[in-house]
């Protein structure tokens, strides 16, 4: 990524070159996937029907896109108006995140053109996946509407923009309801398979775990994303954004530390509920402890220290650690601890082309993010529409 001045001069910046290569490879794999079928580009099998396109693109993607509902709820419902400048970047990241999730699902399902079938042909309401699909579809729409004011300010559609802004509170509440439902349902997807998921990760509380950890993911992603934005798009930020940036890191870091503490406690309650203490001594148990202490307890502590001593750098690195922790958790549930009873020869490891598509989609997200923030009032308030506090 580079500043605007050099992109207008030459398109051959390191970011553009690398992104270009990834996009070309991605398009190549896309062509293979849709002409030769899933078997040609994935290591999926009858024992392992879900790979990283579900584990990463869906589970991690949705969790990391939680910044949208977390931030808008904080500002518009909980009245934390001094974080107002974080709302638009978070909504944009959320919108792009969900959009990419839906794109990724088109790669993963066998007949993507039938994705609307659960809504228009027949509804499988007993399925948690139906809930996920319905909420993701609705929430993507909500995020799109929440994002449109920025685009409409850019395009000069004043009247339409003002109508949408009036819907802010309604959209925010609707967004929180939908997010609660589908974030938790992603965890609840695995409730049906107690015989396949390792008992340390299987819990009747899975939906609660997923919902609570999505709040942590959302808070950490806002910090992480604002750090990156400040690094690469500082010239796009107005005074309010620059001024509130550190405030946001401190406030969100504090909240994340608190929620992580709660999450740690309910995870321990989860072990207790299943009386799985004896499994902690096994190799899976060791890995579970790494997740619990390395990616939950440690960031909880580091956030607390960072906030108390106002060490912004520590908070930012802790956000990275926390985001990694969310990835580890979702991978554990979907891939590592799933099918743990099978011999290693029947386990799944992603094909390089599966990874290629995931990298391709993340890159597409970055390109879209850059395209939008360099044009629309995301990191600054549009001069014609001063922030309404």
């Amino acid at each position: 990524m580079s500043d605007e001045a050099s992109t207008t001069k030459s398109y051959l910046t390191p970011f553009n070159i690398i992104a270009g290569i990834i996009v070309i490879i991605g398009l190549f794999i896309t062509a293979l996937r849709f002409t030769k079928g899933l078997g040609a580009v994935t290591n999926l099998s009858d024992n392992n029907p879900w790979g990283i396109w579900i584990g990463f693109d869906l589970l991690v993607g949705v969790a990391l896109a939680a910044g949208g509902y977390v931030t808008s709820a904080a500002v518009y419902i909980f009245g934390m108006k001094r974080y107002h400048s974080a709302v638009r970047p978070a909504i944009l990241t959320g919108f792009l995140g969900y959009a990419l999730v839906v794109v990724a699902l088109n790669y993963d399902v066998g007949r993507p053109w039938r994705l609307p079938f659960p809504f228009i042909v027949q509804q499988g309401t007993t399925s948690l996946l139906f809930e996920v699909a319905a909420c993701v579809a609705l929430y993507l729409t909500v995020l799109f509407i929440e994002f449109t004011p920025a685009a409409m300010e850019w395009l000069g559609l004043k009247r339409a923009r003002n109508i949408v802004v009036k819907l802010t509170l309604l959209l925010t509440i609707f967004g929180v309801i939908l997010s609660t439902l589908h974030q938790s349902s992603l965890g609840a997807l695995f409730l049906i398979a107690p015989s396949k998921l390792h008992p340390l990760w299987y819990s009747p509380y899975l939906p609660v775990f997923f919902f609570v950890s999505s709040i942590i993911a959302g808070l950490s992603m806002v910090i992480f994303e604002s750090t990156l934005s400040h690094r690469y798009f500082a010239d796009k930020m107005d005074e309010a954004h620059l001024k509130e940036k550190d405030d946001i890191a401190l406030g969100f870091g504090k909240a994340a530390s608190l929620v992580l503490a709660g999450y740690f406690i309910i995870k321990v309650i989860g072990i207790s509920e299943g009386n799985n203490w004896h499994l902690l001594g096994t190799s899976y148990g060791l890995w579970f402890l790494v997740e619990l202490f390395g990616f939950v307890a440690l960031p909880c502590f580091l956030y607390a220290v960072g906030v108390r001593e106002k060490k912004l750098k520590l908070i930012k690195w802790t956000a990275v650690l926390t985001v990694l922790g969310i990835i580890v958790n979702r991978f554990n549930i979907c891939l590592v601890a799933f099918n743990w009873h099978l011999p290693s020869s029947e386990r799944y490891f992603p094909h390089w082309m599966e990874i290629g598509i995931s990298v391709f989609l993340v890159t597409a997200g970055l390109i879209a993010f850059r395209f939008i923030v360099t044009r629309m009032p995301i990191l600054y308030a549009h001069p014609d529409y001063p922030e309404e506090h």
Partner: protein
Amino acid sequence: MSITRRKFLGWLGAASLGTTLGTTAHAASNKEFKGYPESRGVLFDNTRCIGCRKCEQGCNKVNELPAPDRPFDELSVLETKRRTTAKAYTVVNRYEKVSSPKAPVYSKIQCNHCLEPACASACFVRAFSKTEIGAVTYDESVCVGCRYCMIACPFEIPTYEYDKAFTPRVMKCTMCHPRVIKGLLPGCVEACPTEALTYGKRDDLLRIGGERIRKFPERYVNHIYGENEMGGTSWLYLSGVPFGEVGMREDLGITPAPKLTSGALSGVPMVVGLWPVLLTGVYAINKRKERIEREEKQLAVADALEKARAEAESKLAEAMEQAKKEKEAAIEKAVNTAMEEAAKAQTEETADAPTEEAAKNAGEEDA
């Protein structure tokens, strides 16, 4: 934000009503589904199975599945453990290491046609249905290909045609539903030369199984697998060795799969119903706090202004008083000086002017 409360509540009401309509989840109920009456099933008795793979062949033929890589009469296939695939709805595995002198023991796997199927419960487009006659059928024409059924199935039965780009299907045993409704036997049952497979009403099969165990207690494990596993299955199994030794999981429990998720599903209407209340409440509390803060600020400002005004007034009054006093003092002083001067003049004048005249002048001046 200028939404009226009435409008807002109206929207929320409409939204929550729309979401709650049409959900059927019984989280905590004492309802128990024992299967459709008269429904059919198959009893597999592994003490009668000789591992000839004729059932695999029969299945392949009646379901018009592609020819296998190695022919059905090649028994060396049994040397490796296999599972169902998109090309084989059923497979037989051989188990050498069993706690019985009658080794090897064979086990046949295919869809167990659960009474309350996990696949049907998990499918978000209702591609699976449990028919009253017993089979769990799959409707290819609506399947999206999410493969959640394969995640959900505790017996690891459904398979997928990963190599098809445009028409991939989930593939699994249909209990030969198309044949059964025509009055024919399932392909595998028909092909079995040793009567290891018995087709019939599930209730009858349970009775037959029970009788065999009663008659030959030394020959069988005292358990009919499938009677209660995962809430019960249409396929039932008798075994001469513990089921765990022939690759059948004994830890699945007797909870039907839909019960595993009904709790989470029943939470949905609660979130939809209560979240708007909670969130609007939090919003209202914050609004109110802000309003009170604003009012208190205004009050404080007004108060301060009032105080300042009063202070200024009293200061002014004081100053006026002071000025008045000073003025009076000045006058008095002036009068006194005048009087003194007059007195002085009088004393000087006593020698040359009448006293009454001077006194009169002084009195006039005073007035």
